[in-house]
């Protein structure tokens, strides 16, 4: 006999925004309280990848797609060892997952990892609110005895802000490890882990690259200790303005002229290394449908995004930098945000979005080939 409570909690939950707006729903995942920066993600697939993406550390993610959890949780699609989001907001969680790879329900997984969530709220209203007012702090409170609204709002306002947060060390690996090349090994890459997703070294390994994943705190010497053909800077959470150490390491790499590729946070670090500023977007880009134009070919690719900050570089001209001429290589067609940088005199480039695409479309996979070409070029 099935019952109506199958998978659907009756425990009340409240979502409280720092500006005082409140949504009432039901608990999802773990019961308790949590805080973070409220952001929305518009991807219709790939919740498992999103949850385990370290860039979402300290963020409460609102899913705009109403049905979440339909395909359950499997053992293959994790992007890191754990769920990183600090809270999860969905409208209609699945009661029964259906997929031949599914091992358990998402509800169980969230609860097992202690992730507090809320379901059954008007996620579109919340998304519109965040779009109009910008990303802001949020708290989720669930349980049968909840504090009064004033107390909850006060608690949310005490939580730390994302601006000025230095988080990559919190999510990155503490120990270096190696992802071996698939098939014949052609190159060695030192990958600085600022919150790297599992698919990134995999995409490199597929191209014959042996990837040495190094902690965020790795020094220049540690980077060169692996004798890399190229150096990679990963995605990661937090405010790039705080990332002084990786910026310094990258500047040393640029100095030496080793082929360099950066993704997401890595793009912001390249921006800073070149002397550009970074800034916080009103509500960020989070989804897997973003049109980005490769300005060298004019072609448009549909890409996966997850960034709340962006690089402030001129779109209409080549800039002079301490490392030679640089230009904006990719731009988001929705809002003209800088989505990629490249040096014209040195083998270095980066993109703000996610060519490893997990979740998301594979249109930008060619960037890994471009990295390979740079390394080949350096050898020749």
């Amino acid at each position: 006999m099935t019952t109506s409570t199958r998978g659907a909690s009756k425990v009340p939950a409240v979502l409280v925004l720092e500006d005082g707006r409140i949504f009432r729903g039901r608990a999802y995942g773990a019961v308790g309280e949590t805080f973070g920066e409220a952001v929305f993600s518009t991807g219709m697939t790939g919740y498992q990848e999103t949850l385990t993406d370290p860039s979402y550390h300290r963020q409460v993610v609102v899913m705009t797609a109403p049905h979440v959890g339909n395909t359950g949780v499997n053992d293959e699609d994790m992007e890191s060892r754990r769920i990183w989001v600090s809270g999860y907001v969905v409208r209609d969680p699945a009661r029964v997952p259906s997929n031949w790879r599914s091992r358990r329900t998402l509800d169980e997984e969230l609860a097992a990892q202690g992730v507090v969530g809320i379901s059954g709220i008007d996620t579109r209203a919340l998304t519109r609110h965040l779009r109009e007012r910008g990303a802001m702090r949020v708290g989720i409170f669930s349980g049968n005895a909840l504090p009064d609204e004033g107390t909850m709002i006060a608690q949310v306002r005490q939580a730390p802000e994302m601006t000025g947060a230095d988080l990559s060390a919190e999510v990155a690996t503490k120990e270096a490890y190696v992802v071996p090349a698939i098939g014949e090994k052609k190159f060695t890459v030192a990958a600085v882990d600022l919150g790297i997703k599992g698919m990134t070294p995999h995409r490199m390994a597929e191209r014959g690259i042996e990837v040495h994943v190094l902690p965020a705190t790795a020094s220049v010497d540690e980077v060169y200790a692996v004798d890399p053909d190229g150096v990679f800077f990963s995605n990661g959470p937090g405010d790039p303005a705080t990332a002084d150490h990786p910026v310094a390491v990258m500047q040393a790499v640029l100095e030496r002229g080793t082929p360099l590729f950066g993704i997401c946070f890595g793009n912001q670090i390249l921006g800073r290394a070149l002397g550009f500023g970074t800034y916080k977007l009103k509500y960020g880009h989070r989804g897997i449908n973003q049109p980005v134009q490769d300005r060298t070919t004019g072609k448009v690719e549909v890409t996966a995004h997850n960034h709340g900050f962006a690089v402030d570089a001129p779109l209409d001209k080549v800039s002079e930098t301490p490392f030679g001429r640089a230009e904006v290589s990719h731009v988001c067609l929705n809002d003209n945000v800088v989505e990629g940088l490249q040096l014209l005199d040195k083998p270095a480039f980066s993109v703000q979005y996610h060519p490893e695409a997990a979740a998301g479309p594979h249109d930008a996979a060619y960037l890994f080939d471009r990295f390979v070409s740079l390394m080949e070029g350096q050898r020749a």
Partner: protein
Amino acid sequence: MPKRTDIQSVLVIGSGPIVIGQAAEFDYSGTQACRVLKAEGLRVILVNSNPATIMTDPEIADATYVEPITPEFVEKIIAKERPDALLPTLGGQTALNTAISLHENGVLEKYGVELIGANVEAIHKGEDRDQFKLVVEEVRKKIGHGESARSVICHSMEDVLAGVEELGGYPVVVRPSFTMGGAGSGFAHDEEELRRIAGQGLTLSPTTEVLLEESILGWKEYELELMRDKNDNVVVVCSIENFDPMGVHTGDSITVAPAMTLTDREYQVLRDIGIAVIREVGVDTGGCNIQFAVNPEDGRVIVIEMNPRVSRSSALASKATGFPIAKIAAKLAVGYTLDEIPNDITQETPASFEPTLDYVVVKAPRFAFEKFPSADSTLTTTMKSVGEAMAIGRNFTEAFQKALRSLEKKGSQFTFVGEPGDKEQLLRDAVRPTDGRINTVMQAIRAGATPEEVFEYTRIDPWFVDQLFLIKEIADEIAEAPELTRELLAEAKRHGFSDQQIAGIRGLREDVVREVRHALGVRPVYKTVDTCAAEFAARTPYFYSSYDEETEVAPREKPAVIILGSGPNRIGQGIEFDYSCVHASFALSDAGYETVMVNCNPETVSTDYDTSDRLYFEPLTLEDVLEIVHAEQQAGPVAGVVVQLGGQTPLGLSQALKDNGVPIVGTSPEAIHAAEDRGAFGRVLKEAGLPAPKHGTATTFAEAKAIADEIGYPVLVRPSYVLGGRGMEIVYDETRLESYIAESTEISPTRPVLVDRFLDDAIEIDVDALYDGEELYLGGVMEHIEEAGIHSGDSACALPPITLGGFDIKRLRASTEAIAKGVGVRGLINIQFAMAGDILYVLEANPRASRTVPFTSKATAVPLAKAAARISLGATIAELREEGLLPRQGDGGELPLDAPISVKEAVMPWSRFRDIHGRGVDTVLGPEMRSTGEVMGIDSVFGTAYAKSQAGAYGPLPTKGRAFISVANRDKRSMIFPARELVAHGFELLATSGTAEVLKRNGINATVVRKQSEGVGPNGEKTIVQLIHDGEVDLIVNTPYGTGGRLDGYEIRTAAVARSVPCLTTVQALAAAVQGIDALNHGDVGVRSLQEHAEFLTAARD
């Protein structure tokens, strides 16, 4: 790079009449395309034989040809207009096939016309199964994913039988090449089925080719809609998942967008394959859709097929996402790239993105098996539905239940009342996919079936099965609750329960539930379809309801007019009504109103977010309409609701709306009643002194018999309050009358059966007119080709009437005015008359836009629906004449003597249906409407216009060859002259012995052929049916034999359908066809655009 500068004019080919598998969606896409091209400054030349389309409105294109879509006629248009380019991808398979013919016969090259939007090679690669298999193989080599079902191509029955061995036995799928809507395909479980399906498939395929395939029955089915531009940018507009697993044509499946049960990894594999396929096929610019099957056990992906053109699915995807595929395809075809085209809805972001949805869309098919009782209702890979409804909700259950109630069909909503029945039996019934299987599944769940059992019997994905359980559990909660609380109602509404369903479960009246709900403050909000899940602000008010927290309906200043559309297409209520609603929207917008459209049919122009100021994509039930009216009244002033243009659906709501305080504009609900109620209408006629055929109403056989005895047989019997002649029959004797009453389950004291004297040999006349309370504007008078007794929707007709004189028109005008006045019409009225023995009988009056409004409007070059909408809101005919919307003087009854003749012909769906033994269904016309669409032929004389209408509907009339004649006794006299004419035109006549004898006595030679019942002759002489099958007959005349004998020519007529041989089933049609053949044999038939036609009529009026 922007638009190409080397193209100044484009020929767009439409899709012709509405048929199963090719319906109003191509009017939607074609209209979008023509508007875009015109806005780009190109001269747009359009050909489409279907007058009931918005695209054939004279203002949509620069030169509009309502001519047959055949290579011959399109060549004439090309020769006359000399377009630079031809865009063939927006008119379905018809347009694509015509374009290929014109390429292959050298016409395009001869006139220097460039094919844009698709090249011939890509079309072949996409559509030819053999070539497409190679495409899929190539894709697999490149990206490592995707494969075809194992298959064998066959060109003969021998190939077919050998093929089954090769595939490892039954079941196998049979798919004929190059047919639309999957016509002729199906599953064969044994040799008998195989011989039948494959035999027919070989015949249907223009290349005599069928494909046999391994069975993937029960797999998950998905579809992607893609677009590509000339710079090789590709976007996936929408993913669609079929609720019904593989085995049911996607047009007949319940489908859901976005896909619900794919992980990102699996979805990206489909996306990668889709993109690789569109590149490999070489669709340079434009849209295509690709279908996939996914094995639920292990995720193996099979690429089923692709359409290298805009399709039914792309129309659905456009409505589901707000991304206008056809519009963008047209822009891409003239040289733009995706990043150069703005997204209409956000107006800030470009079209080079992939829409993301924060809602769920469900489409449900609408069937018409009740019209074809002998047809096999099992759903297969051949599409059988005649329409569809789409609904949007914030979750699956909400969207799904809204879609089911949008179907507006008795029993389409889930019911939770009464005993469900035996679980085992219900589960066994649920194995066979049929119209309404989903309701059987729900009853099985109520009877105690487990989710595992439901999956085992139906292979419906467990996630969807759980959603059905969720619905059932909420129904239980509603039933068990001590009272209806706010929380319970909110939860029920959140999962799509209608007030009516809740009322049923609680044993209450629907209005009581609504009152309670409103008192508790449970009302829907309206969300926007914005392509981007609220990431950017939407500028286009395209709404759907949801029981959620925040509404997005903005306040407004201007008075709004709410126009109720016609819901899913069905036989008897189709695109013609959408045409009128769209016209009303345009006219009222011009007149300064804010127009608000309500409809749930994704195929239509009315549900294009560009058509009205606001669009509510909602079911057309009382509850849903009342909530919209409420929401709009909150937003600003509401001038009224228009109910008379969307057919019977909104008309049926008018009284209830009025009772709920909603202002109805135009003809009042009381006036509607005066026309629809037999007694009230009888009084109107009596007062006006107009005769109607003798009639009576009965609720029992005894009553019916008494009436029939008094007025004499034959009688016309029908249930009251029906559209499209549902259940209508001509009864010739008492025995049949008794069985008719016994079979008619819907008869009750409140729903009596109507018994009318049937007027044998009467001329039937249709009149469309406008009335403003003072003045009558006679829109047009149509004379039917077939005699009274054949449903007006199935009958061909001519305008101006070809055998009526000035005196008759005068009488018709006076009668029409008397009825319009007596009923109290403000707007359109359609009246059917029958002229018998010089008496003009009134058959019926409909105080609303009729099916013929678009035809009349085009034939007379006057926008009747626009005028009707204005009259509804208070304008007078005199004012409209002054404004120029109506002619300054004269009307549709006073066309000049040299005015061209327009002929409307109905198109029947016979070839789509088989009985359970696989035989065709009979093609005889009757009082119950069964046509799905119509075409118009227009020319200076009747014969040519009729010939064009036939060419547009069924293919050209033969001008020589062999004609087979076999007619009922009562038709034998009237057959002689046309038969003589056929001989004069060089036809060889074949006849059965009885008919041959009559011909012989009249000096006409006819070869006697064997009847089917006589079998093959001693010397191997073939029967007539064999001759037809062997392609040895070019024209068939076969009229049914009055009472009891209607099945006599069954095999002849079904053979004619199978071989696509023109088959005339009335002597009137024969006489018309002979005039057509005569016209075709006398010199060249020209083409004329509607614009030229309008110019001629306008000049004549001034």
